[in-house]
């Protein structure tokens, strides 16, 4: 970490980046129906303004010698030894994310103006979207783990609200709840990591923690790394917490593009990259990151091959691609830049793909079933072109962005030089082949072949307010990889954060890697053509399929595992406890009360109403007392 200076100039205003969208959200939510007419414009304007400010800030940052600036805002929580200041850290890493969030965010806001034009609750949609942008910016700009955590849960809330945007659909409501709760599981990890930091180091700020992490015991650092990884897994839909992300596709498509593809789900990658000083100290935790990345990239790719829902295929693709990023940042210094480059490129092409999918759905009466698509390439020419470019970028077609960034990850994995390097590289190459397969399948089923449309569907191209962002993103998908890896190297920009990029000794020559990956990719494309393109696509999914396909269709039974391991036992436990509380704990109390009441009424029977009985009792009592007195005085 380089020294940071108090920010001045435009950077001193970087809190406006968060405040602008937040104010937009507040106006839209509190303003009510009065803002219906212009609400979407305000929402878009605040994000575009934030983007402009972000660009200006980044230029100023580039001019600074230290390339890092801190903005102190106010004292958030200060009591005892805990002192949490609300402050922002504008450094190259956060700058990259701020540009991605506001840039892609602006495009998607613009797209949503068209996409949500006929929704009566459009104003609410823009309010939530603004809220998301504000929370996400806080997440990447915060200068302490507490600020990060606030943003972290804030994006979780925005994600919840947006997935459940069409809350009258039970599926959407359930998906939103599932997303929030699986995220919370991860959040517990992040929270515990913060507790450990405070207990061991007495601070939660980045500067304080990273400066002192070297003084900690090895076990503590590993625990920190694993807890942070748990948090990252929750937010980024990584194994074992991946099941929420595909369900999150119940939300409107722009949401899937912005939150569940381009920005929020990459927060886990941000967290691990930001915590590089911690992971540098703990090979164990880093190995765990690698394992999570490798497993997830395969799970996502396999599941992506079997789904017929266009958005779910893209969602599993996202899971898989983030697996690549985890793999990269798990490799350590060699992989950080590669992972982040892939993250940025992915932000472009996956957002573009989702927007394209949204355009297709827009044309097909909101259907997502690819078996009822087909032959759309000449009906939706702009969508087809932009989607096609995104597709090529994703599968790693030579000289498009995915080619550069994915190859960099595979190279970095191989450069480890040990057996694990070969295993991880092999997994990544295999993943590339699967990616080519499922994406080609998606292209073929959607845009080529015979039209299998449902009755009454008349495909039409989307309005220009929707196509324009798609075109911009398509251009980005084509060029981003080249720009980030070769023309304007990200490694140089991020140098103040991750240190000097070292020239690794290549185990396998980059050219060979490129050729092999391209060949595997071509194999995937060919396989997809053989299985899907050559034949007629049935409009209903075949029932008699191999166990592998069935497993893939159930996403390798992740939901079934969650259900049988956590949900059902939890329900039983809850029911059992309700019984115990009513009958056991409360029953004991009520039983005591009943016993007292019963014995008192039984004792009451002794009151017969016969005066002479009472007199006898009194006499007996008097004799007893007199006897006792005699016994005491005599004895």
């Amino acid at each position, binding site marked *: 970490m380089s020294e940071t200076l108090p920010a001045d100039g435009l950077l001193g205003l970087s809190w406006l980046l968060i405040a602008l969208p937040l104010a937009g959200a507040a106006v839209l939510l509190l303003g009510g129906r009065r803002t219906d007419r212009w609400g979407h414009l305000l929402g878009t304007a605040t994000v575009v303004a934030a983007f402009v400010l972000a660009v200006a800030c980044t230029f100023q940052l580039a001019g600074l010698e230290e390339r890092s600036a801190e903005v102190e805002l106010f004292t958030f*929580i200060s009591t005892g030894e805990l002192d949490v200041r609300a402050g922002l850290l504008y450094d190259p890493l956060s700058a990259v994310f701020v540009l991605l969030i506001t840039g892609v965010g602006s495009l998607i806001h613009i797209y949503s103006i068209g996409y949500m034009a006929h929704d009566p609750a459009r104003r609410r949609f823009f309010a939530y979207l603004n809220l998301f942008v504000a929370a996400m910016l806080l997440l990447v700009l915060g200068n302490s783990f507490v600020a990060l955590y606030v943003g972290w*849960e804030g994006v979780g809330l925005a994600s919840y609200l947006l997935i459940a945007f069409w809350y009258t659909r039970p599926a959407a409501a359930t998906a939103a709840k599932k997303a929030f*709760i699986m995220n919370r599981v991860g959040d517990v990890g992040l929270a*515990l990591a913060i507790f450990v930091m*405070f*207990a061991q180091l007495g601070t939660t700020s980045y500067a304080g923690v990273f400066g002192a992490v070297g003084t900690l015991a090895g076990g503590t650092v590993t625990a920190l790394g694993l807890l942070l990884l748990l948090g990252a897994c929750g937010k980024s839909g990584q194994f074992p917490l991946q099941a929420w992300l595909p369900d999150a596709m119940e939300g409107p498509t722009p949401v899937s593009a912005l939150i569940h593809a381009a920005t929020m789900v990459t927060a886990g990658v941000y967290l691990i990259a930001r915590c590089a000083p911690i992971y540098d100290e703990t090979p164990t935790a880093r190995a765990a990151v690698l394992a999570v990345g490798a497993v997830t990239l395969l799970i996502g790719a396999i599941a992506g091959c079997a789904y017929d829902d266009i958005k779910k295929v893209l969602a599993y693709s996202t899971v898989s691609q983030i697996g690549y990023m985890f793999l990269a940042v798990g490799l350590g210094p060699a992989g950080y830049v590669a992972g982040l480059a892939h993250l940025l490129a992915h932000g472009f092409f996956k957002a573009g793909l989702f927007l394209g999918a949204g355009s297709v759905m827009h044309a097909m009466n909101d259907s997502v079933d690819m078996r009822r698509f087909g032959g759309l390439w000449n009906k939706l020419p702009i969508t087809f072109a932009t989607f096609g470019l995104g597709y090529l970028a994703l599968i790693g077609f030579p000289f498009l962005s995915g080619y550069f960034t994915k190859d960099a990850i595979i190279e970095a994995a191989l450069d480890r030089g040990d057996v694990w390097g070969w295993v991880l590289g092999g997994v990544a190459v295999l993943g590339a082949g699967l990616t080519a397969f499922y994406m080609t399948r998606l292209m073929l089923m959607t845009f080529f072949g015979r039209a299998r449309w449902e009755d009454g569907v008349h495909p039409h191209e989307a309005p220009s307010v929707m196509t324009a962002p798609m075109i911009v993103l398509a251009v980005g998908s084509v060029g981003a990889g080249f720009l980030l890896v070769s023309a304007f190297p990200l490694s140089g920009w991020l140098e103040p954060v991750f240190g000097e990029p070292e020239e690794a000794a290549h185990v396998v020559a980059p050219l060979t890697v490129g050729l092999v990956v391209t060949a595997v990719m071509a194999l995937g494309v060919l396989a997809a053509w053989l299985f899907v393109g050559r034949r007629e696509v049935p409009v209903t999914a075949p029932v008699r399929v191999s166990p592998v396909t069935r497993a893939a269709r159930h996403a390798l039974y992740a939901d079934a595992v969650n259900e049988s391991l956590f949900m059902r036992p939890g329900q039983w436990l809850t029911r059992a*406890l309700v019984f115990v509380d009513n009958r056991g704990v409360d029953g004991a109390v009520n039983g005591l009360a009943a016993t007292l009441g019963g014995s008192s009424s039984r004792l009451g029977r002794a009151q017969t109403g016969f005066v002479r009985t009472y007199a006898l009792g009194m006499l007996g009592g008097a004799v007893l007392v007199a006897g006792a007195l005699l016994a005491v005085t005599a004895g």
Partner: protein
Amino acid sequence: MSDLPFLLLMIAVPAVGAAVVAALPRGRDQLARQVALGVSLLVLVLAVLAAVAFDTAGERFQLTSSWTWIADFGVSFALGVDGIALVMLLLIGVLVPVVIGASWQDDAAGIGDVATDKRSMKAYFAWLLLLEAMMVGVFAATDVFLFYVFFEAMLVPMYFIIGSFGGPRRQYAAVKFFLYSLVGGLIMLAAVIGLYVVSNSQLGEGTFAFDALRGLEIDPGVQKLLFLGFFIAFAIKAPLVPFHTWLPDSGSEAPIGGAVLLVGVLDKVGTFGFLRYCLPLFPDASRFFAPYVLVLAVAGILYAALLAMGQSDMKRLVAYTSISHFGFIALGIFAFTTEAATGAVLYMVNHGIATGLLFLVVGMLIARGRSRQIGDYGGVAAKAPLLAGVFLVAGLASLALPGTNSFVSEFLVLIGSFPTQPVFTILATAGIILAALYILLMYQRTMHGPPRGVLLQEDPAEPLPAGGGATATLAAPTRSLRVLDLDRRELAVVAPLVALIIVLGVYPQPLLGLIEPAVSATMSDLGGTAR
């Protein structure tokens, strides 16, 4: 200005107000409401002025005043506040006007889910004001005997609020509430007398003054007994598992206004008592018993959260969430660190606001649907977006989402407890997942999905069986059911709480500044923090 006897006024004003409201002629309900609201707002103003007059750098107890009461036993009517008590007085000041505003129409719509046409609204408001006076007294007392008197006297108005204005099983709930509290109170009385005896033997002259008792050197064995005497009373009041089963009954049968004050303020007397009496007076016993208390606290967090998930009655669900939250507060107090204890005190305030709001919106929903069962609702958000929005804010505050006030306190409790009690803290942290589950499950079942259930029924005069089996006599709502969303009065009632949730979530430092000196003093009474 600061010479005003604020605390005495804060007790006297609502007490006199209660008498005035009760003395109003029959049928002047509107006037009764206005007087009650005016009096409660006056108390709020007094509370704010008291907070302004309070000097955080000054003495521990400020705004003190004392009158000899029973000279023979060394009892005095002594009032004074530290930062902890002061924030509780502020909470009372805010909640009572809100509750009165929320109960404004209760004569027409019924209190909660029960018709009230036979009941006297002015009596209800009079009891509320009297309750306010007693609650102020219990937090402001600096004489242990006076504290005990208020502690018991507080039961009387609440007993009548539950027993006369509650739901179908109100008698059962009220008696249960009263008996539980009384048992605890009597055990405490024994301990109070024990304390007096000890002070008599050590100081030569018996006293109940808190500051004098704090200086006693009590034999460890005696400390344990006296600690248990106080602790059991407070653990019933707070309530900690397994002394909790009265709260779901009382919370669900009490009228909404009563439930808000019961859970929001009354129960805080228990946790307040831990911090004010158990820790400083019996430091050795506190350390000895801390592990056992922590077991109860953490078990309560998880156990009550699981139970909350299993409830089908919304008010019971909210009551169970509160038991879970009280576990967090107890954890913060018995972790023996400044951070955690400060967080626990802030939690007491924040929980009053957040759960108060949750109870209020649940009550507003029940007033519309005439049913407490979650299963009778569905898709309300489509019909009543404002109600759903406020419900969500309250729910999110209850699950301690960052940006809401509860986050700050829960975070402080956990991060402060972790250094000394890592295992308990990790278990408690798992509770935040359960919190998300119980809130979101309830929210999804009532607010999301296609509109269905009781709010769609054409004939609102058809009574619906309320919870608990016994069919209540439900009055036909006088308001048209077409007006489903919050009206202006209801918005005015919830708005201050929503604003407080956000403001205290973003900028809690002023409250923390008030609380921390008192917590530090408590920790030094305890002989330093455990770190």
